[in-house]
């Protein structure tokens, strides 16, 4: 079954590039939702059937594939932004940077002292590449919504790394992480609306001075 898991991880890494290259919020949000669903399917493929596993899979798919994208779409609609207009670094440049980071992730993963059974798998390079993509989106985009998307991708990267340990990961920990994420996105959605109401823009580069 590892080959099917590898295909899913390739899909996850491709979605990283979609997010890096697309300027439309709706496409980015759908791409991240798809990434969440793909990741939700992964533990089911990797391990034997158990109720614990069903809980993790179901929780992942509902939270990352449905609830969070729905919240984000709502925030986008209220703030009336369709696309990221001027990122700090252009789309082609971030795409190339993303490609370089992915290649570096493969090089780095090959050098890590992993367990022999994890050696040939795509999990470690995919998780590092996804993490770095998350950082890239967080740092190069201006709009608060794009930064939330970057944060989500970052979390997905951490989740892929955690998959190697899932048999040891109790369901409460996983549920706690998902709940944190959900609450985080919820709060960010509210904050985005407040920012856009206050400043009639959600460009975070304007939020440079503090006032009392």
């Amino acid at each position: 079954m590892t080959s099917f898991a590898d295909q899913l991880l390739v899909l996850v890494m491709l979605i990283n590039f979609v997010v890096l290259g697309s300027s439309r919020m709706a496409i980015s949000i759908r791409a991240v939702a798809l990434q969440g669903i793909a990741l939700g399917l992964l533990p089911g493929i990797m391990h034997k059937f158990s109720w614990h596993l069903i809980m993790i899979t179901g929780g992942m798919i509902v939270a990352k594939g449905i609830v969070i994208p729905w919240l984000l779409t709502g925030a986008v609609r209220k703030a009336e932004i369709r696309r990221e207009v001027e990122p700090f670094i252009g789309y082609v440049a971030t795409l190339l940077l993303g490609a370089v980071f992915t290649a570096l992730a493969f090089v780095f993963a090959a050098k890590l002292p992993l367990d022999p059974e994890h050696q040939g798998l795509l999990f470690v390079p995919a998780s590092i590449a996804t993490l770095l993509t998350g950082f890239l989106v967080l740092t190069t985009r201006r709009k608060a919504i794009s930064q939330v998307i970057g944060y989500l991708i970052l979390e997905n990267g951490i989740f892929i790394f955690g998959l190697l340990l899932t048999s040891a990961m109790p369901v409460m920990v996983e549920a706690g992480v998902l709940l944190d994420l959900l609450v985080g996105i919820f709060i960010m959605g509210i904050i985005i609306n407040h920012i856009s109401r206050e400043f009639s823009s959600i460009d975070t580069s304007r939020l440079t001075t503090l006032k009392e």
Partner: protein
Amino acid sequence: MTDILIHLLLTLLMPPLLLGVIGKTKAAFAGRTGAPFLQPYYDILRLLRKGSVFSDVTTWIFKAGPVITLAATCIAALLIPLGNHPSPVSFTGDMILFAYLFALARFFTMAAALDTGSSFEGMGAAREATFSCLAEPTLFFALIALSRMSNSLSLSTMLNHYSVTDWLRSGASMLLLVGGLFIVLLAENCRIPFDDPNTHLELTMIHEVMVLDHSGPAFGYILYGAALKLFVLQAFFIHIALPLKTGNSLLDWGIFIVSMLILATIIGVVESVMARLRLVRIPQLLVAASILSAFAMLLILR
């Protein structure tokens, strides 16, 4: 021997038919009857019968451009294996020659365009140079990945090596390669969404603007060369996308012809359902294609 004869006959006669199929598909989507399948042949024959007009300010480069372009494409057509049969000419490393024959053809098209001194043609040449620079890495990453998978540097063994088992074993990287190469196939042949072969709107033309000053037989060579290029790149694409093998020589030729026609129909469908991209978006898509095939290479080399 018969295989080589069929190879030569197909490369000489089939290319304009692909253009006819694309045209017919687009017409069917638009609800028209469309020109007959053989219309591109009639067009080329009509152009070959006409006289030529050469501008006084042009030099020999302008006259040599179409001839060299056609010749380079013909040699590339000899290097590519068709339908699981080895190509007439093959040697170790011919994949580099294959890639750079197209570059040579493109160089002379651009030089001929610049030779007229027209500002429009210069603009087209500049665009062609930019976009082909961006399309070239995709082709090379794909070639590296393919030669690594088959442990060979010659196109014949490289492309005939694939079978359905490769798809089962490394489906993800094959899918990435197919995606990247399809984008290159459309970009190199100036099809929608990169360039509209029917448009004559000067702001957006790429390929058509470079050949505006050619007339008569020279323009016929250019049309035929473009069709031949489409044929060769389609054949390259089919080897990777549809690696069907039966072992029976004639049946393989039949499968090859049918799959070429299907691919031409698919291109026609893509042209009918997509709009042209804005010029600023084209480099973005080409870089994305390069990343797809670089990623495939990474997965295969790993």
